[in-house]
């Protein structure tokens, strides 16, 4: 994606810098890759020329409009060149450039390179320079709404940064809710939900509400890891932090099990729930027995790919349960 096509190079519009009158004062500066370079890239002629001029401009320390335009061209050829991005920022500072134009330019660049670290970093620095994040929610929303990109890590990271830095939490829950409705398996959206709810605070009422939200989603798709993880995460925010801290959740999960559901995520939740009970009250053997039975069911039927893991979980609990009795004896 970074490298432009030959077609573009051969296109009549593009005039090599060596043939441009306004660049006549610049002598291109070739790259020194040592006498016997390895992993040598067979650069296309345009790539080579643009970077020869880029080096020459940096060597002169020239920070001008044409230098800025040259960085645009160099970054179109290789948007991952973090040094050229840095030089571009130095030019922008020197020229006291209109940073709104830079944001517009970046909107286009990010549209084409939404999974490139450097473009998002540049965006962050420019927003910091402007001390204004009014376009960041829209920018990241567009990136996430782009077909198949609702889990774009860069976009989410940038969005979280903007929300955190500029206190833009207010409407975020609505946005997240929309994404979860569109795709209940969007784990990025679930994570963002946790981030926002945590900011406002996990009060008992909020915990209740969020548990209900997660259970509603699980009812629709039981075999979906994201709301199960969210459910556990919210339960851990309760005062006791225990998985049995909310009776509705216990009834809900046991109800699913009794109705015949054997989703590995449900089973894993129940195993953890009973394991906690077994460890809290080692004299009650029933919970430990449930863990053992369910682990073996997982290993042999419902989650065979993790057979060794579930056998390990069953054994691990036995070891944990045998430990306190040992200390009692000594």
């Amino acid at each position: 994606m970074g490298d432009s096509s030959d077609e573009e190079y051969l296109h009549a519009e593009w005039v090599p810098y060596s043939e441009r009158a306004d660049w006549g004062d610049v002598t291109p500066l070739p790259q020194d890759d040592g006498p016997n370079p390895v992993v040598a890239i067979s650069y296309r002629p345009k790539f080579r020329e643009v970077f020869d001029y880029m080096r020459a401009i940096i060597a002169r320390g020239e920070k001008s409009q044409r230098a800025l335009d040259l960085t645009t061209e160099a970054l179109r050829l290789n948007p991952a060149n973090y040094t050229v991005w840095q030089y571009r920022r130095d030019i922008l500072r020197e020229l006291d450039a209109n940073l709104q134009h830079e944001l517009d330019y970046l909107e286009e660049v990010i549209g084409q390179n939404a999974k490139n670290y450097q473009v998002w970093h540049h965006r962050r620095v420019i927003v910091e320079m402007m001390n204004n994040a009014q376009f960041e929610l829209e920018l990241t929303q567009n990136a996430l709404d782009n077909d198949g990109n609702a889990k774009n890590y860069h976009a989410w990271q940038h969005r979280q940064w903007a929300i955190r830095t500029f206190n833009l939490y207010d409407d975020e829950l609505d946005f997240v809710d929309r994404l979860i409705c569109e795709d209940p398996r969007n784990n990025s959206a679930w994570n963002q939900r946790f981030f926002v709810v945590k900011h406002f605070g996990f009060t008992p009422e909020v915990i209740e509400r969020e548990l209900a939200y997660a259970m509603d989603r699980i009812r629709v798709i039981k075999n979906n890891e994201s709301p199960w993880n969210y459910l556990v995460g919210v339960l851990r925010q309760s005062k006791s932090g225990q998985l049995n801290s909310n009776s509705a959740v216990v009834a809900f999960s046991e109800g699913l099990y009794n109705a015949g559901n054997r989703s590995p995520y449900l089973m894993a939740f129940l195993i953890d729930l009973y394991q906690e009970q077994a460890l809290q009250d080692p004299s009650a053997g029933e919970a430990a027995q449930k863990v053992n039975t369910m682990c073996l069911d997982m290993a042999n039927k419902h989650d065979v790919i993790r057979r060794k893991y579930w056998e390990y979980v069953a054994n691990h609990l036995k070891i944990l349960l045998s430990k306190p009795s040992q200390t009692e004896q000594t």
Partner: protein
Amino acid sequence: MSYHIVDMTDPSEPKPVLLSKHAKHLVRFLHLLPARLSSHDNTRSTIVFFAVCGLDVLNSLHLITPQLRKDIIDWTYGGLVIPRDNEKQQAGFMGCRAMLPQTEDVEVLECMRKYQWGHLAMTYTSIAVLVTLGDDLSRLDRQTIVDGVAAVQHADGSFSACIDGSENDMRFVYCAATICHMLDCWGSVNKETMFQFIMSSLRYDYGFSQELEGESHGGTTFCALAALELSGQLHRLDAATLERIKRWLVFRQMDGFQGRPNKPVDTCYSFWIGAALRILNGFKLTDYAKNREYILSTQDELIGGFAKWPRSSPDPFHTYLGLCGLAFIGEPGLNDVMPSLNISMAAYANLNQLHEHWRGTDDLKQLRLTGDATTKSTSSSSPLISAQ
């Protein structure tokens, strides 16, 4: 297309790993990269890393001729930045060779220095390549490099890749830890704030995010755990936390491994998740046969190499990490890999010898300085000991 060939084979027979094809594939990258890889211009050192370390895992370092070995080492050292006194440039290896001009003009060379700085990922991969090729690192001033690492650490404990123009996140926390560990020197790097940053990125589902409250991710979970191990701080996590992290990791296996819940599997996560589980001593809990089957479904049987998905184009990154994933399950013909440094166990043994040598020399210096034959500098604070 290569997968048609597969269809004709007996499906009950496990597919072979085409060892020599992969080796040839990696050697080709060492020589010349096609123009379509121009956007990797700044990360060529990482391609050398994938190729050299891949050949090492393939037990095929002999394919690197003495001349090529010398060329790789010289080219690698050619990217070393050594700042002068009162220069703010960060020591280390450059990613961007585009900032090295071909000129005798002193003024031009001087001016370009302002845009030459070390990059943690390139420093890590360059040192790993040198160690793998048996170089003794004698051309490195270890203290200066570690000063360069400390220079890019932030107040929150995270690291940037370089002094200017880089984001700071878990990837560079990992690179910082590998560099300090490999050079057996932590200098003024703050391990405590580093620990705090890592732990503040542990999420509610017990994966680690790239930074703070981002989404749990397989690559960053590896970076976090490896950095904890390499800095001798893994023991600070309590048993319940370790079990929960293990759960998150084990749940990433579908057939191959995915990087996040509800995402497609990808060959590279056979390394990231596999290595993270090995660090926690939990890799043996995974399904080796399914893992192998998936990795091999991404093998290019025509030109060698591995891709992220079946029927996709292979690349050096997925080729190396696919081979490491296979090494973890004990694939015959492959050398085992040291999970947290992501180099072969043989290269790791070389490194340990260097450490012993350096410590011996340091002891000798200490003796000469103090003149006290009874004083012996101990290495108890060394991260190496605690990371074993």
